[in-house]
Protein backbone atom coordinates (compact mmCIF):
# COMPACT_ATOMS: atom_id res chain seq x y z
CA UNK A 1 0.00 0.00 0.00
CA UNK A 2 2.92 2.35 0.64
CA UNK A 3 4.31 1.73 -2.81
CA UNK A 4 1.45 3.90 -4.07
CA UNK A 5 2.86 7.04 -2.52
CA UNK A 6 4.59 8.82 -5.36
CA UNK A 7 4.64 12.27 -3.76
CA UNK A 8 8.26 13.16 -3.28
CA UNK A 9 9.40 10.20 -5.32
CA UNK A 10 11.93 10.71 -8.07
CA UNK A 11 11.63 8.91 -11.40
CA UNK A 12 15.15 8.71 -12.79
CA UNK A 13 15.34 9.04 -16.56
CA UNK A 14 16.84 11.41 -19.06
CA UNK A 15 14.49 14.04 -20.41
CA UNK A 16 14.42 17.75 -21.11
CA UNK A 17 12.14 18.28 -18.10
CA UNK A 18 14.62 16.48 -15.85
CA UNK A 19 17.40 18.72 -17.15
CA UNK A 20 15.58 21.99 -16.44
CA UNK A 21 16.84 24.12 -13.59
CA UNK A 22 14.98 23.19 -10.40
CA UNK A 23 14.01 26.85 -9.89
CA UNK A 24 12.30 26.85 -13.27
CA UNK A 25 10.31 23.79 -12.28
CA UNK A 26 9.38 25.07 -8.85
CA UNK A 27 8.36 28.51 -10.11
CA UNK A 28 6.40 27.03 -13.00
CA UNK A 29 4.59 24.66 -10.67
CA UNK A 30 3.70 27.56 -8.37
CA UNK A 31 2.35 29.55 -11.28
CA UNK A 32 0.47 26.52 -12.51
CA UNK A 33 -1.17 26.05 -9.09
CA UNK A 34 -2.15 29.71 -8.84
CA UNK A 35 -3.62 29.80 -12.31
CA UNK A 36 -5.57 26.60 -11.76
CA UNK A 37 -7.55 28.70 -9.29
CA UNK A 38 -7.91 31.55 -11.74
CA UNK A 39 -9.52 29.20 -14.22
CA UNK A 40 -13.28 29.08 -13.80
CA UNK A 41 -14.65 27.00 -16.64
CA UNK A 42 -14.14 23.82 -18.57
CA UNK A 43 -12.17 25.49 -21.36
CA UNK A 44 -9.52 26.48 -18.85
CA UNK A 45 -9.24 22.97 -17.43
CA UNK A 46 -8.98 21.61 -20.93
CA UNK A 47 -6.13 24.01 -21.68
CA UNK A 48 -4.39 23.10 -18.43
CA UNK A 49 -4.84 19.43 -19.23
CA UNK A 50 -3.29 19.85 -22.69
CA UNK A 51 -0.33 21.68 -21.13
CA UNK A 52 0.09 18.99 -18.49
CA UNK A 53 -0.12 16.22 -21.09
CA UNK A 54 2.55 18.02 -23.10
CA UNK A 55 4.88 18.26 -20.09
CA UNK A 56 4.28 14.62 -19.14
CA UNK A 57 5.13 13.50 -22.67
CA UNK A 58 8.34 15.53 -22.62
CA UNK A 59 9.29 14.19 -19.19
CA UNK A 60 9.14 10.53 -20.35
CA UNK A 61 7.55 9.60 -17.02
CA UNK A 62 4.97 6.84 -17.65
CA UNK A 63 1.39 8.09 -17.21
CA UNK A 64 0.84 5.09 -14.94
CA UNK A 65 3.14 6.71 -12.38
CA UNK A 66 1.15 9.91 -12.26
CA UNK A 67 -2.11 8.01 -11.95
CA UNK A 68 -0.61 5.99 -9.12
CA UNK A 69 0.09 9.25 -7.32
CA UNK A 70 -3.63 10.03 -7.48
CA UNK A 71 -4.68 6.70 -6.02
CA UNK A 72 -4.22 7.50 -2.32
CA UNK A 73 -6.22 10.70 -2.83
CA UNK A 74 -9.20 9.05 -4.47
CA UNK A 75 -11.21 9.37 -1.26
CA UNK A 76 -10.58 13.11 -0.93
CA UNK A 77 -11.42 13.68 -4.56
CA UNK A 78 -14.62 11.62 -4.36
CA UNK A 79 -15.66 13.40 -1.18
CA UNK A 80 -15.09 16.82 -2.72
CA UNK A 81 -17.07 15.87 -5.79
CA UNK A 82 -19.94 14.46 -3.74
CA UNK A 83 -20.15 17.39 -1.34
CA UNK A 84 -20.15 19.88 -4.18
CA UNK A 85 -22.77 17.92 -6.03
CA UNK A 86 -25.17 17.67 -3.08
CA UNK A 87 -24.81 21.01 -1.35
CA UNK A 88 -24.82 23.53 -4.15
CA UNK A 89 -28.02 25.52 -4.63
CA UNK A 90 -29.46 25.96 -8.12
CA UNK A 91 -32.11 24.51 -10.36
CA UNK A 92 -33.00 21.07 -9.12
CA UNK A 93 -32.75 18.50 -11.87
CA UNK A 94 -32.92 15.36 -9.83
CA UNK A 95 -34.37 14.71 -6.42
CA UNK A 96 -34.71 11.68 -4.21
CA UNK A 97 -36.09 12.27 -0.70
CA UNK A 98 -33.96 15.13 0.71
CA UNK A 99 -31.12 14.63 -1.70
CA UNK A 100 -31.20 17.26 -4.42
CA UNK A 101 -28.87 17.42 -7.34
CA UNK A 102 -28.77 20.78 -9.06
CA UNK A 103 -27.30 21.90 -12.36
CA UNK A 104 -24.89 24.18 -10.53
CA UNK A 105 -23.98 21.27 -8.28
CA UNK A 106 -22.94 19.08 -11.16
CA UNK A 107 -20.94 21.89 -12.70
CA UNK A 108 -19.18 22.67 -9.44
CA UNK A 109 -18.45 19.01 -8.77
CA UNK A 110 -16.89 18.49 -12.19
CA UNK A 111 -14.84 21.67 -11.88
CA UNK A 112 -13.60 20.88 -8.40
CA UNK A 113 -12.75 17.29 -9.28
CA UNK A 114 -10.80 18.36 -12.35
CA UNK A 115 -9.03 21.08 -10.39
CA UNK A 116 -7.87 18.63 -7.73
CA UNK A 117 -6.72 16.03 -10.24
CA UNK A 118 -4.80 18.60 -12.29
CA UNK A 119 -3.31 20.07 -9.12
CA UNK A 120 -2.00 16.77 -7.81
CA UNK A 121 -0.71 15.44 -11.11
CA UNK A 122 0.95 18.79 -11.86
CA UNK A 123 2.85 18.84 -8.59
CA UNK A 124 3.78 15.20 -8.78
CA UNK A 125 5.33 15.74 -12.19
CA UNK A 126 7.65 18.25 -10.54
CA UNK A 127 8.80 15.89 -7.80
CA UNK A 128 9.00 12.95 -10.21
CA UNK A 129 11.41 14.82 -12.46
CA UNK A 130 13.52 16.57 -9.81
CA UNK A 131 15.87 14.78 -7.46
CA UNK A 132 15.51 15.79 -3.81
CA UNK A 133 18.92 17.46 -3.83
CA UNK A 134 18.02 19.63 -6.79
CA UNK A 135 14.63 20.34 -5.33
CA UNK A 136 16.02 21.70 -2.07
CA UNK A 137 18.72 23.68 -3.84
CA UNK A 138 16.02 25.28 -5.95
CA UNK A 139 13.83 25.93 -2.92
CA UNK A 140 16.68 27.51 -1.02
CA UNK A 141 17.47 29.81 -3.92
CA UNK A 142 13.79 30.74 -4.17
CA UNK A 143 13.30 31.33 -0.46
CA UNK A 144 16.35 33.59 -0.40
CA UNK A 145 14.37 36.01 -2.55
CA UNK A 146 11.49 36.28 -0.07
CA UNK A 147 12.14 39.26 2.26
CA UNK A 148 11.02 38.05 5.68
CA UNK A 149 12.19 34.45 5.59
CA UNK A 150 15.39 34.82 3.61
CA UNK A 151 17.56 34.59 6.71
CA UNK A 152 16.35 31.10 7.48
CA UNK A 153 16.32 29.95 3.86
CA UNK A 154 19.03 27.39 4.38
CA UNK A 155 17.47 25.94 7.53
CA UNK A 156 14.09 25.70 5.88
CA UNK A 157 15.40 23.92 2.84
CA UNK A 158 17.54 21.65 4.98
CA UNK A 159 14.46 20.67 6.95
CA UNK A 160 12.61 20.04 3.71
CA UNK A 161 15.38 17.90 2.31
CA UNK A 162 15.63 15.85 5.49
CA UNK A 163 11.87 15.37 5.54
CA UNK A 164 11.84 14.30 1.90
CA UNK A 165 14.89 12.15 2.38
CA UNK A 166 13.15 10.26 5.17
CA UNK A 167 9.90 9.52 3.37
CA UNK A 168 11.27 6.38 1.69
CA UNK A 169 13.14 5.37 4.84
CA UNK A 170 10.06 5.66 7.00
CA UNK A 171 7.80 3.90 4.51
CA UNK A 172 10.32 1.09 4.35
CA UNK A 173 10.43 0.99 8.12
CA UNK A 174 6.64 0.96 8.31
CA UNK A 175 6.48 -1.91 5.88
CA UNK A 176 9.08 -3.81 7.85
CA UNK A 177 7.22 -3.34 11.13
CA UNK A 178 3.91 -4.22 9.47
CA UNK A 179 5.40 -7.43 8.18
CA UNK A 180 6.77 -8.30 11.59
CA UNK A 181 3.41 -7.65 13.28
CA UNK A 182 1.54 -9.50 10.56
CA UNK A 183 3.78 -12.46 11.28
CA UNK A 184 2.55 -12.20 14.85
CA UNK A 185 -1.02 -12.44 13.65
CA UNK A 186 -1.89 -8.73 13.64
CA UNK A 187 -4.82 -7.98 11.36
CA UNK A 188 -4.93 -4.56 9.69
CA UNK A 189 -7.62 -5.23 7.15
CA UNK A 190 -10.78 -6.30 8.94
CA UNK A 191 -12.97 -4.96 11.72
CA UNK A 192 -14.72 -1.64 12.18
CA UNK A 193 -13.11 1.79 12.27
CA UNK A 194 -12.21 1.60 15.97
CA UNK A 195 -10.71 -1.87 15.66
CA UNK A 196 -8.67 -0.73 12.69
CA UNK A 197 -7.44 2.37 14.42
CA UNK A 198 -6.46 0.25 17.40
CA UNK A 199 -4.61 -2.17 15.15
CA UNK A 200 -2.31 0.69 14.15
CA UNK A 201 -0.79 0.97 17.64
CA UNK A 202 1.61 -1.95 17.14
CA UNK A 203 2.91 -0.13 14.06
CA UNK A 204 2.94 3.46 15.27
CA UNK A 205 4.69 2.92 18.60
CA UNK A 206 7.77 1.19 17.13
CA UNK A 207 7.74 3.61 14.20
CA UNK A 208 7.84 6.67 16.45
CA UNK A 209 10.50 5.13 18.64
CA UNK A 210 12.74 4.47 15.68
CA UNK A 211 12.01 7.82 14.04
CA UNK A 212 13.14 9.67 17.17
CA UNK A 213 16.16 7.47 17.38
CA UNK A 214 17.02 8.18 13.76
CA UNK A 215 16.59 11.91 14.25
CA UNK A 216 18.89 11.78 17.24
CA UNK A 217 21.53 9.86 15.36
CA UNK A 218 21.32 12.18 12.37
CA UNK A 219 21.71 15.26 14.57
CA UNK A 220 24.70 13.67 16.25
CA UNK A 221 26.29 12.79 12.91
CA UNK A 222 25.77 16.30 11.56
CA UNK A 223 27.17 17.93 14.66
CA UNK A 224 30.21 15.71 14.77
CA UNK A 225 30.97 16.89 11.25
CA UNK A 226 30.70 20.50 12.40
CA UNK A 227 27.55 21.31 10.47
CA UNK A 228 26.32 24.77 11.40
CA UNK A 229 23.84 25.98 8.86
CA UNK A 230 23.97 28.10 5.78
CA UNK A 231 26.37 30.90 6.59
CA UNK A 232 29.56 30.97 4.55
CA UNK A 233 28.76 27.66 2.93
CA UNK A 234 29.73 27.40 -0.70
CA UNK A 235 28.46 24.94 -3.27
CA UNK A 236 30.13 22.53 -5.59
CA UNK A 237 27.20 22.65 -7.97
CA UNK A 238 25.96 26.19 -8.58
CA UNK A 239 22.52 26.63 -10.03
CA UNK A 240 22.71 28.27 -13.45
CA UNK A 241 19.88 29.12 -15.79
CA UNK A 242 20.36 27.82 -19.31
CA UNK A 243 18.74 28.63 -22.60
CA UNK A 244 16.13 25.90 -22.20
CA UNK A 245 14.98 27.51 -18.97
CA UNK A 246 14.26 30.73 -20.82
CA UNK A 247 12.15 28.79 -23.32
CA UNK A 248 10.39 26.99 -20.51
CA UNK A 249 9.52 30.29 -18.82
CA UNK A 250 8.24 31.74 -22.09
CA UNK A 251 6.06 28.69 -22.64
CA UNK A 252 4.74 28.74 -19.07
CA UNK A 253 3.91 32.46 -19.24
CA UNK A 254 2.14 31.91 -22.55
CA UNK A 255 0.11 29.05 -21.11
CA UNK A 256 -0.79 31.06 -18.01
CA UNK A 257 -1.94 33.93 -20.22
CA UNK A 258 -4.01 31.44 -22.18
CA UNK A 259 -5.50 30.06 -18.96
CA UNK A 260 -6.49 33.58 -17.89
CA UNK A 261 -7.98 34.21 -21.33
CA UNK A 262 -10.28 31.20 -20.95
CA UNK A 263 -12.17 33.11 -18.25
CA UNK A 264 -13.61 35.28 -20.95
CA UNK A 265 -14.85 32.38 -23.02
CA UNK A 266 -18.53 31.56 -22.59
CA UNK A 267 -19.01 29.07 -19.74
CA UNK A 268 -19.80 25.52 -20.73
CA UNK A 269 -22.75 24.16 -18.86
CA UNK A 270 -22.84 20.43 -18.67
CA UNK A 271 -26.51 20.33 -17.87
Amino acid sequence: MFKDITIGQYYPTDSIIHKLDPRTKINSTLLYIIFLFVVNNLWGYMAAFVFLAFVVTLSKVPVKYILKGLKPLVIIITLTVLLNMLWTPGNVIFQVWIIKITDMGINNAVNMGLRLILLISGTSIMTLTTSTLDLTDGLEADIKKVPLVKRIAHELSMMMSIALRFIPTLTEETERIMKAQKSRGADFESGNVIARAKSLIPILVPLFVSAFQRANELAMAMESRCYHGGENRTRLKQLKYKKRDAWAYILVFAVMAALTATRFLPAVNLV
Partner: protein
Amino acid sequence: MSVSVKNLTHVYAQGSVFEYTAVKDVSLEVGAHEFIGIIGHTGSGKSTFIQHLNRLLVPTSGTVVINGIDINQKGVLMKDIVKRVGIVFQYPEYQLFEETVYKDVAFGPKNIGFDDEKIDFYVRESIELVGLDFDKVKEVSPFDLSGGQKRRVAIAGVLAMKPQILILDEPTSGLDPMGRYEILECIKNMNKQKGICIFLVSHSMDDVAQYADRIMVFNEGKLVMFDEPSKVFADSGKIKEMGLDVPQGKQVLEALKSRGVNVDTSAYTTEDTIKELLKFFKKNGGNNV
Protein backbone atom coordinates in the same frame (compact mmCIF):
# COMPACT_ATOMS: atom_id res chain seq x y z
CA MET B 1 5.10 -30.24 9.16
CA SER B 2 6.75 -30.25 5.77
CA VAL B 3 7.57 -27.42 3.41
CA SER B 4 7.51 -27.86 -0.31
CA VAL B 5 8.27 -25.01 -2.67
CA LYS B 6 7.90 -25.36 -6.42
CA ASN B 7 9.29 -23.02 -9.09
CA LEU B 8 8.99 -19.98 -6.85
CA THR B 9 9.76 -16.71 -8.61
CA HIS B 10 9.32 -13.23 -7.20
CA VAL B 11 9.54 -10.04 -9.20
CA TYR B 12 9.46 -6.69 -7.40
CA ALA B 13 7.75 -3.66 -9.02
CA GLN B 14 6.85 -5.59 -12.12
CA GLY B 15 6.49 -3.41 -15.21
CA SER B 16 8.33 -0.34 -13.86
CA VAL B 17 11.90 0.91 -14.18
CA PHE B 18 12.54 -0.55 -10.75
CA GLU B 19 11.59 -4.07 -11.86
CA TYR B 20 13.82 -6.58 -10.16
CA THR B 21 13.69 -10.34 -9.99
CA ALA B 22 14.67 -11.20 -6.44
CA VAL B 23 13.97 -14.94 -6.48
CA LYS B 24 14.26 -17.08 -9.58
CA ASP B 25 12.70 -20.49 -9.98
CA VAL B 26 13.40 -21.93 -6.54
CA SER B 27 12.20 -25.46 -5.78
CA LEU B 28 12.85 -27.45 -2.64
CA GLU B 29 11.50 -29.91 -0.09
CA VAL B 30 12.08 -29.68 3.64
CA GLY B 31 10.90 -32.30 6.11
CA ALA B 32 9.60 -31.72 9.62
CA HIS B 33 12.19 -31.32 12.42
CA GLU B 34 14.98 -30.28 10.05
CA PHE B 35 17.42 -27.50 10.89
CA ILE B 36 18.09 -25.55 7.71
CA GLY B 37 20.75 -22.91 7.33
CA ILE B 38 20.35 -20.23 4.67
CA ILE B 39 23.38 -18.37 3.39
CA GLY B 40 23.96 -15.97 0.53
CA HIS B 41 25.52 -12.65 -0.25
CA THR B 42 23.55 -9.45 0.52
CA GLY B 43 20.80 -9.11 -2.08
CA SER B 44 20.89 -12.77 -3.05
CA GLY B 45 17.19 -13.27 -2.34
CA LYS B 46 17.26 -14.96 1.06
CA SER B 47 15.00 -12.44 2.79
CA THR B 48 12.55 -12.35 -0.11
CA PHE B 49 12.44 -16.13 -0.10
CA ILE B 50 11.63 -16.54 3.58
CA GLN B 51 8.79 -14.02 3.38
CA HIS B 52 6.98 -16.39 1.04
CA LEU B 53 6.82 -19.07 3.70
CA ASN B 54 4.10 -17.23 5.63
CA ARG B 55 2.50 -15.33 2.76
CA LEU B 56 3.94 -11.93 3.61
CA LEU B 57 4.85 -11.99 -0.05
CA VAL B 58 2.79 -13.69 -2.71
CA PRO B 59 4.85 -15.42 -5.39
CA THR B 60 4.85 -13.94 -8.88
CA SER B 61 4.75 -17.55 -10.01
CA GLY B 62 5.16 -20.91 -8.33
CA THR B 63 3.64 -22.48 -5.23
CA VAL B 64 4.40 -22.77 -1.53
CA VAL B 65 2.89 -25.84 0.10
CA ILE B 66 3.07 -26.21 3.87
CA ASN B 67 1.88 -29.47 5.35
CA GLY B 68 0.00 -30.28 2.17
CA ILE B 69 -1.81 -26.94 1.97
CA ASP B 70 -1.04 -24.41 -0.73
CA ILE B 71 -0.91 -21.26 1.40
CA ASN B 72 -1.66 -18.94 -1.50
CA GLN B 73 -4.93 -20.69 -2.22
CA LYS B 74 -8.14 -18.76 -1.77
CA GLY B 75 -9.76 -19.26 1.62
CA VAL B 76 -6.56 -19.95 3.54
CA LEU B 77 -6.55 -17.52 6.48
CA MET B 78 -3.42 -15.56 7.38
CA LYS B 79 -4.15 -16.45 11.01
CA ASP B 80 -3.85 -20.14 10.26
CA ILE B 81 -0.57 -19.62 8.43
CA VAL B 82 1.17 -17.55 11.11
CA LYS B 83 0.05 -20.08 13.71
CA ARG B 84 2.28 -22.63 12.03
CA VAL B 85 5.05 -20.54 10.53
CA GLY B 86 6.75 -17.98 12.77
CA ILE B 87 9.20 -15.43 11.41
CA VAL B 88 11.69 -13.55 13.54
CA PHE B 89 12.95 -10.68 11.42
CA GLN B 90 16.31 -9.00 11.55
CA TYR B 91 16.58 -6.70 14.56
CA PRO B 92 13.24 -7.94 15.94
CA GLU B 93 13.59 -5.64 18.97
CA TYR B 94 12.22 -2.84 16.77
CA GLN B 95 8.79 -4.45 16.76
CA LEU B 96 8.25 -4.20 20.52
CA PHE B 97 5.46 -1.81 21.43
CA GLU B 98 3.55 -2.85 24.55
CA GLU B 99 3.80 -1.43 28.06
CA THR B 100 5.09 -4.61 29.61
CA VAL B 101 7.11 -7.58 28.44
CA TYR B 102 4.22 -9.89 29.29
CA LYS B 103 1.74 -7.99 27.14
CA ASP B 104 4.16 -7.82 24.25
CA VAL B 105 4.86 -11.53 24.24
CA ALA B 106 1.13 -12.21 24.59
CA PHE B 107 0.30 -10.11 21.50
CA GLY B 108 0.88 -12.95 19.00
CA PRO B 109 -0.94 -15.73 20.86
CA LYS B 110 -3.87 -13.38 21.53
CA ASN B 111 -4.13 -12.53 17.85
CA ILE B 112 -4.38 -16.14 16.78
CA GLY B 113 -7.10 -16.79 19.34
CA PHE B 114 -5.53 -18.78 22.17
CA ASP B 115 -7.50 -18.66 25.42
CA ASP B 116 -6.12 -16.80 28.45
CA GLU B 117 -4.95 -19.90 30.27
CA LYS B 118 -2.99 -21.08 27.25
CA ILE B 119 -1.57 -17.61 26.66
CA ASP B 120 -0.38 -17.40 30.25
CA PHE B 121 1.32 -20.75 30.00
CA TYR B 122 2.97 -20.15 26.64
CA VAL B 123 4.15 -16.65 27.53
CA ARG B 124 5.87 -17.95 30.64
CA GLU B 125 7.30 -20.92 28.77
CA SER B 126 8.73 -18.89 25.90
CA ILE B 127 10.20 -16.15 28.08
CA GLU B 128 12.00 -18.82 30.06
CA LEU B 129 13.00 -20.62 26.88
CA VAL B 130 14.91 -17.57 25.64
CA GLY B 131 16.75 -17.43 28.94
CA LEU B 132 15.01 -14.61 30.81
CA ASP B 133 13.64 -14.67 34.33
CA PHE B 134 9.86 -14.55 33.87
CA ASP B 135 9.00 -13.11 37.28
CA LYS B 136 11.65 -10.43 36.97
CA VAL B 137 10.82 -9.17 33.51
CA LYS B 138 7.09 -9.70 33.07
CA GLU B 139 6.06 -6.29 34.43
CA VAL B 140 9.02 -4.37 33.02
CA SER B 141 8.62 -2.11 29.99
CA PRO B 142 10.40 -3.70 27.03
CA PHE B 143 11.97 -0.30 26.27
CA ASP B 144 13.85 -0.41 29.59
CA LEU B 145 15.66 -3.63 28.75
CA SER B 146 19.13 -3.96 27.27
CA GLY B 147 19.57 -4.63 23.55
CA GLY B 148 20.19 -8.34 23.99
CA GLN B 149 17.23 -8.73 26.35
CA LYS B 150 14.94 -6.88 23.94
CA ARG B 151 15.98 -9.26 21.20
CA ARG B 152 15.08 -12.23 23.41
CA VAL B 153 11.69 -10.78 24.29
CA ALA B 154 10.98 -10.28 20.60
CA ILE B 155 11.94 -13.86 19.83
CA ALA B 156 9.79 -15.04 22.74
CA GLY B 157 6.89 -13.11 21.18
CA VAL B 158 7.08 -15.36 18.14
CA LEU B 159 7.75 -18.54 20.11
CA ALA B 160 4.65 -17.99 22.25
CA MET B 161 2.56 -18.62 19.14
CA LYS B 162 3.86 -22.19 19.16
CA PRO B 163 4.94 -22.33 15.53
CA GLN B 164 5.99 -25.66 14.09
CA ILE B 165 8.25 -23.90 11.63
CA LEU B 166 10.45 -21.09 12.91
CA ILE B 167 12.32 -18.80 10.55
CA LEU B 168 15.01 -16.54 11.96
CA ASP B 169 16.65 -13.81 9.89
CA GLU B 170 20.08 -13.03 11.35
CA PRO B 171 18.98 -13.47 14.96
CA THR B 172 22.50 -12.89 16.28
CA SER B 173 23.57 -9.78 14.37
CA GLY B 174 24.89 -7.07 16.65
CA LEU B 175 25.14 -9.32 19.71
CA ASP B 176 28.25 -10.10 21.72
CA PRO B 177 29.80 -13.60 21.43
CA MET B 178 28.11 -14.82 24.61
CA GLY B 179 24.71 -13.54 23.48
CA ARG B 180 25.18 -15.19 20.10
CA TYR B 181 26.06 -18.51 21.63
CA GLU B 182 23.10 -18.44 24.02
CA ILE B 183 20.59 -17.59 21.32
CA LEU B 184 21.93 -20.21 18.93
CA GLU B 185 21.94 -22.88 21.64
CA CYS B 186 18.39 -21.97 22.50
CA ILE B 187 17.39 -22.34 18.83
CA LYS B 188 19.14 -25.69 18.69
CA ASN B 189 17.25 -26.89 21.76
CA MET B 190 13.94 -25.91 20.22
CA ASN B 191 14.86 -28.01 17.22
CA LYS B 192 16.17 -31.02 19.11
CA GLN B 193 13.73 -31.09 22.04
CA LYS B 194 10.52 -29.67 20.61
CA GLY B 195 11.08 -30.80 17.04
CA ILE B 196 10.46 -27.35 15.61
CA CYS B 197 11.65 -27.02 12.03
CA ILE B 198 14.18 -24.18 11.88
CA PHE B 199 15.28 -21.95 9.01
CA LEU B 200 18.26 -19.91 10.12
CA VAL B 201 19.43 -17.10 7.85
CA SER B 202 22.97 -16.09 8.75
CA HIS B 203 26.06 -14.36 7.49
CA SER B 204 28.19 -16.44 9.79
CA MET B 205 29.41 -19.56 8.01
CA ASP B 206 30.58 -20.94 11.34
CA ASP B 207 27.10 -20.75 12.83
CA VAL B 208 25.32 -22.49 9.98
CA ALA B 209 28.11 -25.05 9.63
CA GLN B 210 27.82 -25.94 13.28
CA TYR B 211 24.05 -26.02 13.69
CA ALA B 212 22.37 -26.78 10.36
CA ASP B 213 21.47 -30.23 9.05
CA ARG B 214 21.30 -28.86 5.54
CA ILE B 215 22.30 -25.53 4.03
CA MET B 216 20.60 -23.53 1.30
CA VAL B 217 22.96 -21.32 -0.69
CA PHE B 218 21.40 -18.42 -2.57
CA ASN B 219 23.18 -16.54 -5.30
CA GLU B 220 21.60 -13.85 -7.47
CA GLY B 221 18.11 -15.05 -6.63
CA LYS B 222 18.77 -18.68 -7.42
CA LEU B 223 19.06 -21.60 -5.05
CA VAL B 224 22.45 -22.85 -6.20
CA MET B 225 23.08 -25.48 -3.53
CA PHE B 226 20.98 -27.28 -0.98
CA ASP B 227 22.97 -29.93 0.81
CA GLU B 228 24.70 -31.05 3.98
CA PRO B 229 27.35 -28.67 5.34
CA SER B 230 30.22 -31.01 4.47
CA LYS B 231 29.17 -30.99 0.82
CA VAL B 232 28.33 -27.29 0.64
CA PHE B 233 31.71 -26.30 2.03
CA ALA B 234 33.63 -29.00 0.14
CA ASP B 235 34.51 -26.70 -2.73
CA SER B 236 35.75 -23.46 -1.16
CA GLY B 237 36.50 -21.92 -4.57
CA LYS B 238 32.87 -22.17 -5.58
CA ILE B 239 31.68 -20.65 -2.29
CA LYS B 240 34.14 -17.78 -2.53
CA GLU B 241 32.98 -16.96 -6.06
CA MET B 242 29.57 -16.11 -4.59
CA GLY B 243 31.06 -13.63 -2.15
CA LEU B 244 30.81 -16.10 0.74
CA ASP B 245 33.43 -18.01 2.63
CA VAL B 246 34.02 -21.35 4.31
CA PRO B 247 34.01 -21.65 8.14
CA GLN B 248 37.12 -20.39 9.91
CA GLY B 249 38.30 -23.84 10.95
CA LYS B 250 38.28 -24.98 7.38
CA GLN B 251 40.14 -21.82 6.36
CA VAL B 252 42.90 -22.72 8.81
CA LEU B 253 43.15 -26.26 7.49
CA GLU B 254 43.20 -25.11 3.89
CA ALA B 255 45.87 -22.51 4.63
CA LEU B 256 48.00 -25.24 6.26
CA LYS B 257 47.50 -27.55 3.34
CA SER B 258 48.51 -24.88 0.83
CA ARG B 259 51.74 -24.46 2.81
CA GLY B 260 52.52 -28.13 2.41
CA VAL B 261 51.19 -29.48 5.70
CA ASN B 262 49.45 -32.77 5.10
CA VAL B 263 46.09 -32.34 6.86
CA ASP B 264 42.60 -33.46 5.84
CA THR B 265 40.55 -30.35 4.93
CA SER B 266 37.13 -31.97 5.08
CA ALA B 267 36.35 -30.76 8.62
CA TYR B 268 34.09 -27.72 8.71
CA THR B 269 33.16 -27.10 12.34
CA THR B 270 35.59 -25.61 14.83
CA GLU B 271 35.40 -28.76 16.93
CA ASP B 272 36.28 -31.08 14.04
CA THR B 273 39.10 -28.78 13.01
CA ILE B 274 40.64 -29.05 16.46
CA LYS B 275 40.25 -32.83 16.34
CA GLU B 276 41.94 -32.96 12.97
CA LEU B 277 44.82 -30.82 14.16
CA LEU B 278 45.31 -32.93 17.30
CA LYS B 279 45.29 -36.08 15.19
CA PHE B 280 47.93 -34.54 12.98
CA PHE B 281 50.12 -33.58 15.92
CA LYS B 282 49.85 -37.05 17.43
CA LYS B 283 50.75 -38.70 14.16
CA ASN B 284 53.79 -36.54 13.75
CA GLY B 285 54.91 -36.62 17.35
CA GLY B 286 54.16 -32.93 17.66
CA ASN B 287 57.54 -31.82 16.32
CA ASN B 288 57.29 -32.11 12.61
CA VAL B 289 55.44 -28.94 11.68
